[in-house]
């Protein structure tokens, strides 16, 4: 009886039913209004407007099914404000709208992890095609769709890859609060992202899309209806990013506990703050750009169609004005996680705290002034190339701050090589290679050859996979015991680390050489003399996929089957989240803590934070 009642409540099942219903309502509704097709092919049902409205209807139905309208409606009917959504206990919380920031954090971890594995599978399929220089495993259109799906899924989903799981889970705890500033918006960001992920995958039913993750115009205008899925996915990601950023900034600025001054904030919080600033400033540009592109396809506008007065340059400018800050949205949380974890395992305070903060803020500021380095050979603003070369190279100064702070934190420490620490240390290796190859790309003369080649592709895989994904796994091994209350297997973790580290380098380092030798990105064929390199890379990539399976095995085995309870503070950290029980209780703190210092007092004789302190309970 209760089971049946649970199934018809506002949960994931209802959401899916209403989502599909909304999809068909939008589809047939639009057909009824505008007729069967706006396009040349009356016999083929290429009705773009219907498709877009169908997806919007689907998203709306999905959100209503999850219960996002319940609160506004009950408020309109005169009920007092409440946070009822988080009171329902049990596993059911994870399958619906929940305003507990810890539940949302775990939802993000599982949801983004799921799409990360799908994106990784797409990469395997791409590498299968590239085993042979001219033999076609996939039809050319399928291959381009795989390239686009891999790139878009990774770039879109992983914008929230660290802020989603670890930001949502940890930020309120780290600043001594009981919840985020806007708990329902927090839940909304997650479910928008999931709806977007499903929409992107459904592009395969509508012919896929040929543009890769950049969606350049006018190629995007002439593409199949599957292109609309790309626009809707990225627009939903943009909305989710904007809301997530606003929520994080509001929380960090207004909800810090007494005593937690700006100079005592954990560096991870600074990282989240600077990333959120980037999200709030950059993502709305993306949403507007994609709306313009959608109008070009559905409402016959001509923003980007050159033969009718539009400009593809406009799209390139707008896209990269978002796109370059976006890659720092991916990279900065990685910097922050590394600097947060290093002091714990080096048993030393974070060296040069102010310099580290300046590095994070400096990177986020400069990232808005470099976007045209993606357009060095495009013929746009040729006289601005020296400026963009200079501003791009300037970014290496604040990035260097992160390096020196991390290195000096290790200096004369008592370094323990636990799994999270290994991932953090490998970050330095990977990001060094990624950063130094970036120097070649930022240098305009050198960029003439490397631009748009596999060199570029290897470069950003070193910065994003080597920087972000390694930090992401560091975060998982470090914080999942706190989030779930169960330890991850250390031995399997080390196997995962070493296989991943070696195979990652074995996969991506040869691609620098392939790029130097003249292999362009996103091609289905390549020169015969590059076959050995490509085969080597493909085999390494498959094995790298196997390394991910080791992680998956460890994750499931440790958390589902072994269930070894984690102690409250397995790493000997002085940060506040480790002074709470694992997993953290629903209301985080019985009494709001009062901070008396930063969490890096190793070797200074100060103990960890005293949690029960003076402020009255129930402040938040």
């Amino acid at each position, binding site marked *: 009886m209760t089971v049946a009642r649970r199934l018809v409540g506002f949960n994931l099942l209802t959401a899916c039913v209403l989502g599909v219903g909304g999809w068909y309502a939008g589809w047939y509704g639009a057909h009824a209004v505008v007729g069967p097709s706006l396009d*040349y092919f009356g016999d083929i049902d*290429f009705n773009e407007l219907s498709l877009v409205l169908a997806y919007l209807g689907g998203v709306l139905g999905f959100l209503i099914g999850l219960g996002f309208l319940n609160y506004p409606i009950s408020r309109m009917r005169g009920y007092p404000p409440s946070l009822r959504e988080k009171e329902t206990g049990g596993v059911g919380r994870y399958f619906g709208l929940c305003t507990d920031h810890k539940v949302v954090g775990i939802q993000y971890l599982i949801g983004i992890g799921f799409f990360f594995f799908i994106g990784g599978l797409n990469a395997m399929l791409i590498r299968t095609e590239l085993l042979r220089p001219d033999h076609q495993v996939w039809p*050319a*259109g399928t291959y*381009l769709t795989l390239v686009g799906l891999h790139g878009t899924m990774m770039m879109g989903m992983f914008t929230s890859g660290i802020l989603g799981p670890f930001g949502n889970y940890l930020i309120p705890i780290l600043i001594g609060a009981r919840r985020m500033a806007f708990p329902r918006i927090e839940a909304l960001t997650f479910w928008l992202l999931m709806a977007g992920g499903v929409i992107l995958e459904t592009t395969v039913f509508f012919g896929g899309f040929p543009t890769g993750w950049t969606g*350049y*115009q006018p*190629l995007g205008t*002439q593409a199949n209806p599957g292109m609309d899925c790309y626009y809707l996915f990225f627009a939903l990601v943009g909305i989710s990013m904007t809301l997530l950023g606003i929520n994080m900034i509001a929380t960090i600025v207004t909800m810090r506990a007494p005593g937690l001054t700006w100079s005592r904030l954990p560096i991870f919080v600074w990282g989240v703050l600077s990333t959120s600033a980037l999200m709030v400033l950059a993502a709305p540009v993306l949403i507007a750009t994609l709306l313009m592109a959608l109008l070009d396809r559905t409402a016959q506008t001509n923003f980007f169609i*050159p*033969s*009718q007065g539009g400009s593809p*340059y406009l799209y390139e400018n707008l896209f990269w004005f978002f796109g370059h800050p976006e890659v720092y949205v991916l990279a900065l949380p990685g910097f922050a996680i590394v600097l947060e974890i290093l002091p714990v395992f*080096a*048993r*030393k305070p974070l060296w*040069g*705290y102010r310099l580290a903060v300046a590095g994070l803020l400096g990177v986020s500021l400069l990232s808005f002034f470099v976007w045209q380095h993606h357009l060095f*050979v*495009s*013929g*746009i603003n*040729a*006289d601005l*190339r020296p400026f963009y*070369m*200079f501003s791009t190279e*300037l970014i*290496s100064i604040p990035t*260097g701050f992160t*390096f020196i702070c991390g*290195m*000096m934190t*290790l*200096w*004369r*420490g*008592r370094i*323990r*090589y636990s799994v999270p620490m290994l991932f953090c240390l490998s970050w*330095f290796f990977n990001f060094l290679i990624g950063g*130094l190859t970036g*120097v*070649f790309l930022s*240098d*305009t*003369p*050198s*960029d*003439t*050859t490397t631009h*748009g080649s596999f060199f570029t592709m290897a470069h950003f895989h070193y910065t994003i996979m080597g920087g972000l994904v390694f930090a992401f796994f560091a975060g998982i091994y470090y914080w999942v015991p706190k989030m779930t209350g169960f330890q991850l297997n250390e031995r399997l973790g080390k196997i995962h680390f070493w296989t991943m580290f070696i195979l990652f380098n074995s996969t991506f380092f040869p691609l620098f050489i392939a790029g*130097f030798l*003249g292999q362009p990105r*996103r*091609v*289905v*064929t*390549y020169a015969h003399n590059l076959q050995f390199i490509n085969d080597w890379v493909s085999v390494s990539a498959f094995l790298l996929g196997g390394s991910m399976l080791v992680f998956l095995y460890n994750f499931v085995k440790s958390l589902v089957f072994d269930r070894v309870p984690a102690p409250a503070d397995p790493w000997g950290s002085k940060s506040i989240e480790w002074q709470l029980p694992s997993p953290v209780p629903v209301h985080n703190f019985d009494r709001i803590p009062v901070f008396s210092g930063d969490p890096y007092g*190793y070797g200074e004789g100060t103990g960890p934070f005293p949690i029960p302190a003076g402020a009255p309970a129930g402040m938040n």
Partner: protein
Amino acid sequence: MATPAAAAPASERRDHGKRVVIAWIVLSVIATPLVVLVLGPQLPPGHATVQAAGQVVDNTVLTAIVTPVVCLLAVFFVYALSQFRHTGGALVDGPPLRNDNRVQVLWIVITSVTVLFLAAFGTYELLQDGSGGGQGPNPIALPSGPKLQIQVIGQQWEFTYRYPSYGGVETPQLVLPANTQIELHVTSLDVIHSFWAYELGVKADANPGVDNIAFVKTKGPLTFHVRCAELCGLWHGYMFNTGRVVPASQFASWVKGQERDFAPVAKYLPRYSTIYLPDPQRRAG
């Protein structure tokens, strides 16, 4: 802020900093010339044109700057991770070093000087001859002397070439005279392509409605490869071809032959123009 050496335990009194710096200098002094001499000649895109050779110089200088940085981090991490390794179960705290202004200032000065040098050197190299990159309709890096104009037209999914000084003749293969300053006008008929002639050291996006100019000065005869370097749709992967640099006399006879072959179809083609705007396009199928 640094802890005085006297306060540290005996094992900490060794001068770690001096050791790392000396090892770094020794390694850099050995590695940098080695890398420049061994790796430098292998760096792309070769010496077939003036622009390509300029890029090789540029790549070599960048590699020479990058090598000491790699050496520093390699020495630092090998030393730190082996020397400061903690074994045994008990947690022991390290010295609470929170800051050192000298290290900070030194680091900021070194990185800033490097960055300023890189930007200045890159700008100098760029403004000499444009380094083979597309410069848009109003190029800023103009090589001196007479130039042979050639138009590169990208379309889904091939490049064709027009020679305005030879009656606008259009050919499917790019043939260039040796030892000549070439002015390439890159444009597109449909979507964005990118004209990449690897051995020539030329890359310029082909934008519809835009005349994107790149310069290249050829040297001796060779065969080079042309590929599209910007995703342009279904058969992007097959958008490649070869081109030739031939002696001037051979070029003259080749282009004369092309003009003769081209004459019957010339009247069906649009007149030579820096850009062509095709019909409003929708789908390509």
